[in-house]
């Protein structure tokens, strides 16, 4: 399968934080959910991808090209959306179109105005008076109106209400109807990713903990609910981490099939991305309350 993004051994060192040997791929035609808690390294990775900061080591390939040699060509085919609107507050949606027609070679005015109508965004109202949701919708309308092949979103849906978020997720699904298009969606709202992501990559403290298909990741993990005495019989190698309460233990295991056979007498429940994130973040403690 061809990849829209290929990252191998990406490293960036800061004082007090290191993005350590990051490697993952985003296949063409898929949505990669990039999850992790605040400060885990999601934004740093995205900035490295976009060459907004310089990498210390590692290789990146985007849309089959080398960003060091073909930066301009790559950037004309991608769209980046951040949590903050880049357009000045005194501008309106009409003016944004005039400006962006000069920025993007393939600017499609008609598509842009279609999105504005669809999102019910006023064309002549100043951006400064837009709500957060409207600003984000405007940014997404702009990002989708120059036929970009890769959409990179950094916490773009954070801070939006569920209705707006759903609307935006639907737009992404439509965008992916074209198999050449791909999305890298960074978020800590795992429910969004659960809805639309094909793949997930989980980053914590600058390291990739999991990467692969979303369904496989969720299916491979499970939560064993048992008494404290039963918990003692679970092998440490099978455990990601365990929540110990007064009533018993909830144990996250990373190989469901193996554990189903091994611990047949115990209750093994399905899990979610949110739970996986929660248990992995506390993996060093192993036991927590």
């Amino acid at each position, binding site marked *: 399968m061809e990849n829209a993004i290929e990252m191998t051994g990406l490293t960036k060192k800061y004082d007090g934080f290191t993005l350590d040997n990051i490697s993952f791929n985003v296949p063409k035609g898929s949505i990669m959910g990039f999850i992790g808690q605040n400060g885990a390294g999601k934004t740093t990775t995205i*900035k490295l991808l976009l060459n907004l900061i310089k990498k210390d080591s590692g290789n990146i390939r985007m849309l089959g090209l080398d960003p060091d040699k073909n930066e301009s060509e790559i950037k*004309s085919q*991608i769209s980046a959306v*951040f949590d903050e*609107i*880049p357009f000045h507050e005194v501008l309106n949606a009409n*003016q944004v179109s005039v*400006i962006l027609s000069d920025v993007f070679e393939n600017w499609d005015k008609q598509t842009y105005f279609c999105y504005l109508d669809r999102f019910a965004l006023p064309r002549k109202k100043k951006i400064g008076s837009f709500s957060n949701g409207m600003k984000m919708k405007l940014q997404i309308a702009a990002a989708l109106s120059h036929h970009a092949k890769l959409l990179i979103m950094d916490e773009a849906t954070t801070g939006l209400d569920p209705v707006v978020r759903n609307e935006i997720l639907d737009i992404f699904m439509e965008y992916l109807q074209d198999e050449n298009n791909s999305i890298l969606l960074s978020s800590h709202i795992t429910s969004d990713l659960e809805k639309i992501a094909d793949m997930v990559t989980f980053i914590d403290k600058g390291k990739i903990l999991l990467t692969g298909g979303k369904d496989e990741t969720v299916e491979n993990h499970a939560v064993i609910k048992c008494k404290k005495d039963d918990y003692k019989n679970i092998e440490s190698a099978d455990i990601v981490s365990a929540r110990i309460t007064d009533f018993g233990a909830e144990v996250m295991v990373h190989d469901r099939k193996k554990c189903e056979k091994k611990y047949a007498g115990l209750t093994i429940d399905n899990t979610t991305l949110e739970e996986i994130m929660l248990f992995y973040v506390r993996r060093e403690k192993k036991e927590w309350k």
Partner: protein
Amino acid sequence: MKGLLYKNYLITRKYYFMAFMFSFITALFMILIRLSMICGNISHDAEAVDELTRSMWIFRYMPCAVIILGFAGYEETFFTDLNAGWTRFSRTTSLSANKIVGSYFLSSGIVLTSAYIICLLYLVIFCLSFGDKISLHYITNITSLFCFGVIKQYFNLTLAMFAQKRQTVQLIAISIALIFPWLLCAYIYPKMKELENPDTVLLEWMAQQFEPIKAYIFPVMLFLAVIFTVGGYFISVKGLERRTF
């Protein structure tokens, strides 16, 4: 480039309006003074008319200074544009650093040149109203003022593009700049003590001290304006290319 220039125009257009309003009001005020000198109460008092004519010198330069320096002050709007995430966004597109910096430099140049033309026109109106000759002296003074505006504007723009911590660098620059008035005071104060009657002759004495410097102001300003424009552009492009977000 057209779209970027259009954006810069849109985010700074209130300054155009303010400058035009200011020049219109001062021109109107000037005409009213002239009319009062011709047909108002003081028209019969030759001494009062002369006094007023003498005190009108400030009107030759003050509005020009306000217009040019006012326009040169609009880079603050560019800073808000840069900080609002536009720079980061523009670096995710195929826009080159040359184009981004060029648009800011070109917009500033257009605005300052239009302010300069307004000032020259204003000077012509003034001289025609008060029967003054349009001398080279006025023109060089206004051109020096324009050059100062260019230096201020491009220095700040370069700083915004190049320095990650603009405010710190600005603070250092201001601190260095403050040394000069201090040195000047250190020079003037002992000289003043030597004068018999410092209060009455101080202004004249200061004018005498500055007389030789005046001859150099125009060429120095012109030279610095060119250096700050060309140098500032290249430093800004380099700064933007190496800048991280």
